């Protein structure tokens, strides 16, 4: 139980059963060894706070237009300049997180739920059902993400909700395949067999025994995925398949900048916002992945 039992950071997944104090120490050690994770966490937290407090922090309303003041470069009054309708870009960027963060989260959650459900069933039932689910995921994965999402979003009609829906349609197979693999490996564990022997019904085994043991890797995949979900979502918005033009959404704001090529600030700042958030999630995800990969740990 001594505090300095190991020098290498422990995988986060294994810490669940430890006492809280020990777990805290493990996490602190992990963070000290991975400064990029700390930077990532700080940036993500900052964006969450900014999004929540946007009405208090923003000097102007995100939709407030002053056409006489259009396309002004960054100044003391408008830190990030103004766009083609004289709206304050700094205020709009602050509000942007209110769309991108929940959108990314919804995509990952939606895809996670569908994928986990289908993957778990495929793993538990096996046979022809497994075969069908796996073939279907292969077909979906043969489509490049953004093309398929673009087709779905265009067909459903452009709106924020439809963009998220389109991405869920494209996103779930990864989770289904991962979940199936996890279920197959957990299924052969002794404790699952024990549960079956004493007569626990299959759905209960799935829910109470198998699922909890698959959660840790799924949560990790979800975290790593958040960055790319936000990136693809911004891409869809950029193509005009997400929000309506007035909404302060980062991808949409960058696409405004295409028409106003000489006014670099119109596109630059919303794009930087996307970058910081995605980079932050990738810093976090990368650190977790390194910590969980025993081969990499040995090599370092």
């Amino acid at each position: 139980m001594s505090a300095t039992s190991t020098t290498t950071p422990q995988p986060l997944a294994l810490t669940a059963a430890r006492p809280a104090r020990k777990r805290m120490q493990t996490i602190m050690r992990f963070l000290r060894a991975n400064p990029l994770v700390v930077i990532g966490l700080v940036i993500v937290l900052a964006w969450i706070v900014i999004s929540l407090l946007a009405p208090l922090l923003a000097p102007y309303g995100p939709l407030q237009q002053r056409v006489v003041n259009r396309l002004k470069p960054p100044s003391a009054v408008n830190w990030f300049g103004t766009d083609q309708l004289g709206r304050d870009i700094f205020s709009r960027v602050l509000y942007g997180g209110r769309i991108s963060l929940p959108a990314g989260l919804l995509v990952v959650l939606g895809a996670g739920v569908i994928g986990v459900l289908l993957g778990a069933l495929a793993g538990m039932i096996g046979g022809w059902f497994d075969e069908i689910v796996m073939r279907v995921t292969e077909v979906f994965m043969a489509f490049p993400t953004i093309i398929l999402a673009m087709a779905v979003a265009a067909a459903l009609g452009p709106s924020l909700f439809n963009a998220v829906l389109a991405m869920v349609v494209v996103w779930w197979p990864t989770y289904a395949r991962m979940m199936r693999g996890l279920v197959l490996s957990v299924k052969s564990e002794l404790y699952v067999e024990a549960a079956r022997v004493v007569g626990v019904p299959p759905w209960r085994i799935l829910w109470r025994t198998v699922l909890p043991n698959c959660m840790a890797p799924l949560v990790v995949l979800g975290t790593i995925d958040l960055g790319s979900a936000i990136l693809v979502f911004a891409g869809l918005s950029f193509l005009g398949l997400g929000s309506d033009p007035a909404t302060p959404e980062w991808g949409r704001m960058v696409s405004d900048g295409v028409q106003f090529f000489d006014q670099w600030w119109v596109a630059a700042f919303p794009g930087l916002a996307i970058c910081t958030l995605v980079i932050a999630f990738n810093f976090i995800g990368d650190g977790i992945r390194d910590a969980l990969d025993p081969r990499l740990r040995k090599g370092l």
Partner: protein
Amino acid sequence: MSILRYILRRMLLTIPLLLGITLIAFAISHAVPADPVAANLSQSAMSDPTIVAAFRAEWGLDRPVHEQYLTYMGNLLQGNLGRSIKSRRPVLDDLRQYLPATIELATAATLVGTSIGLLFGIISAVRRNSLLDFGVRTLSLVGVSLPVFWLALIALQVLYARLGWFPGPGRLEVGMEPPPRLTGLLTVDSLAAGDWNALRSAVSHLMLPSLVLGSFTAGLVTRVTRSALLEVLGLEYIRTAYAKGLVERVVILRHALRNALIPVITVIGFSYGNLLAGTVLTETIFAWPGIGWYAYRASTSLDFPAIMGVSMLIALIFIITNLIVDILYFVLDPRLRVA
């Protein structure tokens, strides 16, 4: 012989995959609330019931969905992908026209990204845990995090408009006569025609978009090269190579890198497919008349024969790339040939 049989088996396996792809593409373009009539006819044409009816009849929109699908599949087997609602030309002709530009761009981007990625990955692995390594790793993470459409715009604003280091949008100088069409790849065509001016122009116009598009590949390849190389460098035959007095360059390039290449090639194959999709976002900005631009136009106008054509084509390229990657495994790893 075993390679040939393997390739044949893999190709047979792609048939159900392709069938599934047609089914999904068809389902998306049909089982949705959006109305292709409204998307393609003007306001005045919409109010004329005979025009609307004629439009529906022309595209089979008045028949049951499963009949529409069977009609489509029947045509497909004869090499007929239907007619684009927007351009009013056969989809196959459209694809033939727009695909080469995208292939040229994606290939150039892969070359640029892979060269940068391999170089950075090797440096990073050899100087492991140094400040340089930390810098390269951070840079590679940034590389995979940048929104490509934003990077494209900023690159044009800074490197073209302000500094003038690179030419602007388009595939050639404005007003320049393209070389006679052979492959549709401007670099190859101008080379074949011996048109040096066109070649110079085509290559210089390729540079900026492929740098932008290749940044993601570069980031990905750097990371995979680094970790694959680190894994190999810890093995005993590397120590043996050092022990028998080989210089570091030889050990790294001839002994370690070759054995680390398999995961790198997987990633390159994967990112090529993604590049084709990523061009949707860059082609609009660089005014690049490729398939991504075509796909975008098709999906905003609900031009479903075109959407299906593009989706199937890109999925097909994706499958072929995967096949090539698998075959390369055979070539690179002699152990697989026995098994």
